[in-house]
């Protein structure tokens, strides 16, 4: 291959019971991303290597992994970002159980998503059963619609990653999903109780790692989690807000 450069890789090979880092060498072409190299290894050296991928364009969220310790999409990580004389280590996401090699079981996220109180539109504004809303109102939840469900934010969140609080905390991706409904101008459902108790929003300590790793540049912490935390404060920790609700019967 013209302009090819020998690069070393260390890939996790194994299952949730155990495994090891195996080293491979690959002739990497110009402009390659890490997923290109993993595919070359799979094609030429390790046909049984398990790797999940789909679009190769950073839009499907399938090829999430940890590259040199950082949660990233393999298809959006250029090999030229790493020194050529050092091996690139690729591990599966730590926050989820490994199925095989680089593939993890992320089904827990979908179970959590099912339990978020669903979008509940208010009564139609017009007799023909339609609603009226404006672009400036829906821009806020639209930002969260960019989520590609790569679950890198879940993976980097220390509450799940290090402390394993999967039973107590829904994680940043699911808070973003809740924010999509919660901030929608037509929605009338209340989610603060779900967010506080089952969602465990209090476990988030705002360290913003989720925002740092988001490949869609969603401002997860500032635009989704903190506004949701403030809504929980309104409902549970603000005596003035409670008094106001009582006085105005709202």
């Amino acid at each position, binding site marked *: 291959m013209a302009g090819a450069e020998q690069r070393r890789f260390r890939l*996790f090979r*194994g299952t*949730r*019971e*155990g*495994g*090891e*880092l195996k080293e491979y060498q690959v002739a990497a072409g110009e402009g390659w991303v890490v997923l290109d190299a993993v595919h070359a290894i799979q094609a030429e050296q390790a046909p049984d290597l398990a790797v999940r991928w789909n679009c190769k364009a950073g839009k499907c969220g399938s090829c999430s992994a*940890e590259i*040199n*310790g*950082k*949660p990233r999409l393999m298809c959006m990580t250029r090999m030229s970002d790493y020194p050529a004389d*050092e091996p690139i*280590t690729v*591990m*599966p996401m*730590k926050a989820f159980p*490994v199925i095989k090699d680089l593939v993890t079981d992320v089904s827990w996220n979908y179970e959590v998503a099912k339990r978020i109180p669903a979008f509940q539109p208010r009564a139609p504004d017009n007799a023909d059963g339609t609603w*009226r*809303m*404006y672009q*400036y*109102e829906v821009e806020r939840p639209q930002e969260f619609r960019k989520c590609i469900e790569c679950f890198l934010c879940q993976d*980097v969140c*220390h*509450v799940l*990653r*290090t*402390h394993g*609080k999967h039973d107590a*905390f829904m994680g940043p991706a699911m808070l973003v999903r809740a924010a999509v409904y*919660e*901030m*929608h*101008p*037509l*929605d009338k459902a209340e989610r603060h109780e779900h967010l506080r108790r089952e969602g*465990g929003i*209090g*476990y*988030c*300590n*705002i*360290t*913003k*790692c989720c925002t*740092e*790793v988001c490949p869609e540049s969603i401002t997860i912490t*500032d635009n989704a989690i*903190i*506004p949701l*935390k*403030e*809504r929980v*404060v*309104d409902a*549970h*920790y*603000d005596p003035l807000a409670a008094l106001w609700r009582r006085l105005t019967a709202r």
Partner: protein
Amino acid sequence: MTTSVRDLQERGFGATLRRDAWWIAPALTALVLGSFAVYATWAAWTGTNYEWGPYLSPFYSPLIKTSWWPLSPAFLILVFPLGFRTTCYYYRKAYYRAFFLDPVACAVGEPRHGYKGETRFPFILQNVHRFFMYAAVIFIFILAYDVFLATRWPVSGGPERHFGIGVGTLVMALNVILLASYTFGCHSLRHLIGGSVDCFSCARGGRARFRLWRGVTVLNQHHMLWAWCSLFSVALTDLYIRLCAMGVIHDVRLF
């Protein structure tokens, strides 16, 4: 050799597969925040050299001199700005990382188990941030009034005052601008002013609230920058006035 996947990833404090200098940011944060805490405590404790000419240190404003309080007057008021910064959403990130190592950096191992986050005492008290914000907004107006007073220079020891501006006036004005940019970009203010509204076109005064929310959002997007700039400006304003009062430097009167 077969190893569990968790053994290959980070376990224990500081363990990580990251190869970048992840420790620099928390180390710098700890150094700067720690230095500010030491300086602010010392400056508040001394109870001297906090005013010179028409200037008053922000650590001592509003100045409350009373006979029943034996300590420095700064301790009567510092709980409000201190509480505002301590419960601030940005500073929470900074000190959880730098001092509590929870986590020290993204995807880096932590020293402790039994994490409770902000669900239990004492960190559940972070939820009072909005009440400190109310006080912080009042302080902005007090400090702005101090800037006005810093343009009123005494004339030869008498009660009469003339308009004038010194370097200290500009330092105090810049401090108020930076503090206002930090305070008016607060996440709690952003929520209360419009963030809690989903349907602006349905809410009373919705259009106005949306414009206010958008304005606060512009400042909020750079909340970290304002947080640091205002932290430095408060300390430097106090230092400038202190050095003038001690006679170490001489304030330049511009007009």
